[in-house]
């Protein structure tokens, strides 16, 4: 079953077309990876899902991203981006905790939504930190600054923060590129566990990472979707020559 569907999506940075007529399904409670060389449009595609491009004037979307079950068009002009961001969380390349305590970071989204009951907030904080596999490491120092955590812990804190508002889709933009191999492995393991609860779309430069953790993979090149398929098929026997050339390192 699909949680979302990208339909004939094009995106323009003013006059520059960055995405060209892209269509692909996002399966519910699965990991979809987006791979491709620098500048191919993979982060641009990811950012369409939670309307990050709206922050800059002149940017324009064509086509649709339908979010199910209600089939609302995420890039529809009449849809409020704030509303969308409540349903779709995002984790970025570099860990970006707020200059607040660990606790305040996790519950920030809940407070913004006007949730005031301390017991409920505390419960959600613990659950999110547990889901982000961070609880055991921070339970005794919840009110210490988030900046005291290691890079890998900060990234998991950002995941916990994104999870606290119970998003339907979680977007990851190169979530481990600033982490060491051990921290990377923990985040990858976490993504594997999280997909039981949430639909995940991940952009990564690391093809082995895409191969390890995703169920489906989309390969983008110069703003076009070249191939989309099951990860196993795409990495062992891709249909398109461009995909083959890219994943075997025969590009440029």
């Amino acid at each position, binding site marked *: 079953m699909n949680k979302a569907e990208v339909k004939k999506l094009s995106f323009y940075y003013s006059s520059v077309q960055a995405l060209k007529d892209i269509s692909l399904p996002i399966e519910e409670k699965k990991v979809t990876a987006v791979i491709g060389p620098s500048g191919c449009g993979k982060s641009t595609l990811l950012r369409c899902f939670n309307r990050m491009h709206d922050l800059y004037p002149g940017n324009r979307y064509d086509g649709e991203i339908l979010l199910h079950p209600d089939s609302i068009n995420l890039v529809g002009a009449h849809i409020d981006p704030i509303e969308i961001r409540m349903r779709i969380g995002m984790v970025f390349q570099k860990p970006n905790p707020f200059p607040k305590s660990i606790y305040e970071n996790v519950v920030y989204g809940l407070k913004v939504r006007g949730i005031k009951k301390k017991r409920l907030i505390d419960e959600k904080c613990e659950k999110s930190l547990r889901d982000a596999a961070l609880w055991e490491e921070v339970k005794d120092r919840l009110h210490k600054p988030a900046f005291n955590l290691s890079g890998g812990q900060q990234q998991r804190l950002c995941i916990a923060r994104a999870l606290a508002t119970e998003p339907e889709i979680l977007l990851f933009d190169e979530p481990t590129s600033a982490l060491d191999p051990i921290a990377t492995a923990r985040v990858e393991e976490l993504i594997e566990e999280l997909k039981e609860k949430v639909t995940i779309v991940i952009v990564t430069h690391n093809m082995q990472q895409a191969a390890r953790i995703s169920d489906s993979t989309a390969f983008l090149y110069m703003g076009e979707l070249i191939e989309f398929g099951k990860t196993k098929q795409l990495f*062992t026997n*891709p249909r398109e020559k461009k995909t083959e050339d890219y994943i075997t*390192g025969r590009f440029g």
Partner: protein
Amino acid sequence: MTEHTDKHYELQLRNLKETILKMGGLIEEMITCSVKVLTERNSRLHEELTIKEKEVNSLEMEIDEKCLEMLALRQPAASDLRFICIGLKISKDLERIGDLAVNISQQAMELNKEPQLKPYIDLPLMATKSQKMVKEALDSFVHRDAQRAKSICEMDDEVDDLNEKIFDELVSFMQKSSDAVSRGTRLIACSKHLERVADHATNIAEQVIFMVQGQDIRHGR
């Protein structure tokens, strides 16, 4: 095919292919040698065969090492992954063919100590076909030619039929005369070894189809 951006990797892959071909070339020579020991009753060639076998064994290990190194250090994907994986399998099949060539030669050495049981007609034919299958399998590997590889799989049936024919013929020889039993049994073994050579050539051909098309056709799939 487009070359890899990483020239060292490109070189490693080419080197692996060349090593497989070197092993294949030796195997072809070994089959020729063993068939000559049998059909031309030339026992002196057996020694040459044992020297080649040692070389083949060390090439098998060299290929395995190269494949494992690339799997561990390069994390290959798609056609590269398939190529390296079949490299591991082809080397095993080639090594087994080498062993079978030695087995044929050993049987022939014993046969050569006695008068020839009967004129060899089907056995050299079978040897030629098996040999051709090995050569074709290796050629299809070099040229990444799945079509050619498919035709090898079909040739295997002809070799199987010849094996059956030789078996029946030799059994009737042995039924007529107990003097024929020892030589007949050895000839049946030679025929069986040649049939196995053809099976290994078929395995290689199936691997080539997998390498080129990514399609596993083994066991009727």
